[in-house]
């Protein structure tokens, strides 16, 4: 056994331990784009609700007619679908470039741990919407999304954990200020994603 052999052994061990337990194909650029989609969605919503002209501080249970609610849900769904699609496509591209597969044991585990809080939170939000507690949706989505990120962070970059904690904190603050949900939502899903995505892109993607 020569010294180079030993070094190769050690390098392959390090590489495998990392590759087998962490999903490192997650694209940073997709984070930036998801943030941009969220900001566009928030801007459209702002226009639609003519935010700012109504004093939301007074009542938490804003009664909006159901056609508006339907449009809002459609906007949110469009942002979500566009973000997920971008994430999957860009991550698949990154994985291909690195000669790895996107659908492996680690990514499955990552998805499971992300999906659990997201599904629970999503169902809870649907229940709240049906009961008319619209004001609760903003903070709840931020908090559950943050929990999903923290849960998934052991399977990918550790920066995801910090992003998750920021989302949770933001969600809790947002719950203290009902009526400003849209602003917090835009910061959480828009600005934070853009910051996180840029950092990851500069650090790992190039």
């Amino acid at each position, binding site marked *: *056994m020569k010294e180079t052999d*030993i070094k190769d*052994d*050690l390098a*392959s*061990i390090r590489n495998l*331990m990392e590759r*087998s337990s962490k999903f490192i194909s997650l694209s940073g650029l997709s984070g930036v784009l998801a943030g941009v989609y969220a900001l566009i969605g928030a801007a459209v919503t702002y226009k639609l609700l003519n935010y700012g002209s109504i004093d939301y501080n007074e009542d938490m249970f804003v009664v909006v007619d159901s056609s508006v609610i339907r449009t809002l849900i459609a906007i949110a769904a469009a942002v979500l679908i566009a973000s997920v699609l971008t994430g999957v496509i860009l991550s698949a591209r990154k994985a291909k470039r690195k000669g790895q597969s996107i659908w*492996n*044991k680690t990514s499955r585990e990552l998805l499971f741990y992300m999906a659990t809080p997201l599904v629970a939170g999503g169902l809870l939000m649907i229940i709240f919407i049906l009961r008319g507690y619209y004001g609760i949706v903003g903070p709840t989505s931020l908090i559950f999304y943050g929990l999903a990120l923290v849960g998934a962070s052991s399977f990918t970059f550790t920066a995801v954990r910090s992003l998750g904690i920021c989302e949770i904190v933001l969600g809790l603050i947002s719950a203290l200020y009902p009526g400003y949900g849209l602003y917090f939502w835009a910061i959480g899903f828009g600005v934070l994603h853009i910051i996180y995505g840029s950092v990851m892109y500069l650090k790992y993607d190039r």
Partner: protein
Amino acid sequence: MKIPFDKLDKAFENRLRLQIMSVLVANQRYDFNSLKELLDVTDGNLASHLKGLEKEEYILVNKSFLGRKPNTNYEATDKGKKAFAAHLDALEQLIKSTKS
């Protein structure tokens, strides 16, 4: 200069065995197909080395069924983890001793 080759674990002489062990130490458990994909090796090659590690009692094999498909999971035993750590220490020492 005496190089401590004797401290290296014979069971890890093969590169693939060492790789299998590093995956199992980093993860609680790993299934056969995921291992095969990750390490990019043939069924037979992987199976024979897994058997070798099993014989040393370095790994545990759990066979189960996912629906109708058989699913074989592997996990590192405490003995295996200790042996792996000792092997890494020995490798490190080797590098140090060749440098000095």
